């Protein structure tokens, strides 16, 4: 497995727009048949990175090899082998789902029949509906179908579920999971940590044009040394909470103020929760909210940057 050539190889990639550095020297390697996630807040440089890999944006420096080929020498061959979904693609509202697929299919030498692609993204019922009448989730599935018409060796998905309601997101995740089972290689960008955790074998976390962590979701979560997160708030008197007192409790490895409450990094939940409750009553603080969850990629990002993905 390790000896197979990578589907995508990026070395020391740099790109600036005027005086803004969008991508500041990143390395990536996507292996065949894996789903690789580029995770980071808006403005981290994910879209610039993926568009350089898609051959839509010129790089300033560095190496980009897609399926072992380079854009400057094999651009046209590469286009035939890639499936691309852009962030916020607006397809023509005036034509139907089938007509859209037929249009995109005509650009590729080989690929499945338009009706088969429509079946793949479960839009059979909307086959003859105008694109303008589709819901957000259906449009996104159509955009996905347009990426699949050439039977691509490598699929680029840029923020595939942004702006969708939870049900539509689930549906799209199921589709992407199905593509993974079919053995397709996928590079996807997202700022939803649950999406990356759900879909990706490996992720790289990007912030300010750099990759700040990489690995499997499990490895990354393990790397911050906490298994659980306990969040509580004490109503108006939150400021009175003594962070240091909580950080030194049994089973707690760290504490930080967060959104008017307190967030504790916890290694042993069964010790930490009783200790927190005892400490609160010792300080005479009322408990208005208490939540615990297993550590996620979001917590990894918070631990690395001190910011949340959504408000970074």
């Amino acid at each position: 497995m390790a000896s197979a050539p990578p589907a995508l190889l990026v070395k020391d990639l740099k790109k600036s727009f005027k005086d803004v550095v969008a991508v500041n020297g990143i390395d990536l390697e996507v292996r065949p048949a894996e789903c690789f996630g580029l995770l980071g807040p808006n403005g981290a440089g994910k879209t610039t990175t993926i568009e350089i890999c898609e051959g839509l944006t010129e790089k300033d420096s560095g190496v980009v090899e897609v399926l072992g080929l380079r854009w400057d020498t094999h651009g046209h061959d590469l286009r035939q082998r890639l499936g691309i979904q852009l962030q916020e693609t607006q397809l023509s509202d005036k034509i139907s789902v089938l007509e859209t697929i037929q249009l995109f299919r005509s650009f590729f030498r080989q690929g499945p029949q338009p009706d088969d692609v429509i079946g793949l993204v479960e839009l059979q019922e909307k086959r003859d509906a105008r694109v303008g009448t589709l819901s957000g989730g259906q449009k996104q599935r159509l955009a996905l179908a347009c990426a699949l018409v050439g039977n691509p060796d490598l699929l680029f998905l840029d923020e595939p579920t942004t702006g969708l309601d939870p049900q539509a997101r689930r549906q799209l995740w199921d589709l992407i999971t199905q593509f993974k089972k079919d053995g397709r290689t996928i590079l996807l960008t997202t700022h939803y940590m649950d999406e990356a955790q759900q879909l990706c074998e490996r992720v790289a976390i990007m912030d300010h044009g750099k990759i700040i962590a990489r690995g499997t979701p499990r490895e990354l979560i393990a790397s911050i040394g906490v298994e659980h997160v306990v969040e509580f708030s004490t109503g108006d008197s939150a400021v009175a909470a003594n962070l240091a007192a909580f950080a030194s409790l049994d089973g707690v490895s760290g504490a930080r103020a967060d959104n008017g409450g307190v967030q504790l990094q916890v290694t042993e939940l069964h010790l930490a929760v009783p200790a927190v409750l005892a400490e609160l009553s010792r300080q005479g603080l009322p408990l208005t909210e208490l939540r615990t969850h297993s550590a996620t990629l979001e917590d990894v990002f918070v631990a690395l940057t001190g910011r949340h993905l959504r408000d970074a």
Partner: protein
Amino acid sequence: MREHPLFQLTLLRFREFVREPEALFWAFAFPILLSAGLGVAFRNQPADTVHVAAVTASIAASLRQDKLLVVDELSAEAARAALRTGKVTLVAEPGSNGSVLYRYDDTNPEGRTARMLADRAMQVAAGRKDPTPVSDDVAREPGSRYIDFLVPGMVGMGIMSNAIWGLGFSIVDARRRKLMKRIVATPMPRHYYLLSFLLWRMLLLPFEVGVPVGFGVLVFGVPMRGSFLELIGLCIFGSLAFSSLGLLIASRARTIEAASGIMNIVMLPMWIVSGVFFSADRFPAMVQPFIKVLPLTAVNDALRANMLQGSGFSQLIPQLAALAGCMVISFSLALKLFRWR
């Protein structure tokens, strides 16, 4: 053939157009409104009559013998007031010794016409007999009237405006919605994308040209002396040239506002100097070479030569060369400069 990208792209253009009710309405309404406007302006009118005033009943009776004179019988004072305000062009009043006095402005051609008509009427009424009998055969020769000049100019202007507006808006809209960027992310050869716009415009050509030409020929008897096939060829040639120019105009613009600014800058001079409403020969000889190479001048000159003089392609080489030049240069520049995202 259905699977060919160029076919599919042209189909996309065509579908987007015919499924947009407003665009379709204006595309159909404009040539019809234009033709209707011409119909009103050039409807068949009787020969012009001349308004004159007579001060006495006997003079009025004499003048009324001529059908081209409309005679008002007024007091001397009222008649002169009417002359001053232009309501009549001549006043006939009794002079001394039984003569008749004509008051009129001899620097106004209509005044001199009125003088001749009034005098003829007075003399005939008084018993003059013409020594030589004459009769009139009024000739209004098709091919030399203003309407004959105007219809080919309107056709040329229509081809230009439709191609440039139609292309400019569709392209900027596709760019703004990132539809273009998405299509460019596929292996589609880029010149197909641009060519599809040219083909789409050509599909609409039969209507854009057919309505004004058909109206001109059927209603006004505008002659079509040249080869019909060559006329079609000229329209296709013109459409290709203007569509290429439209591609070039829209090659960089990101907003509709920016595009319409450039479109107006390009089209306005041609509306004025390229002989749509009046002959381009009115401009100084010095600028004629520049006017002649403008694509609208070439189209208008070629259409007029075909329809009115029956000229063939062999006599229209300079015009065809100007159009070919415009097409090749604009299309290659557009392909080079085009902003694909």
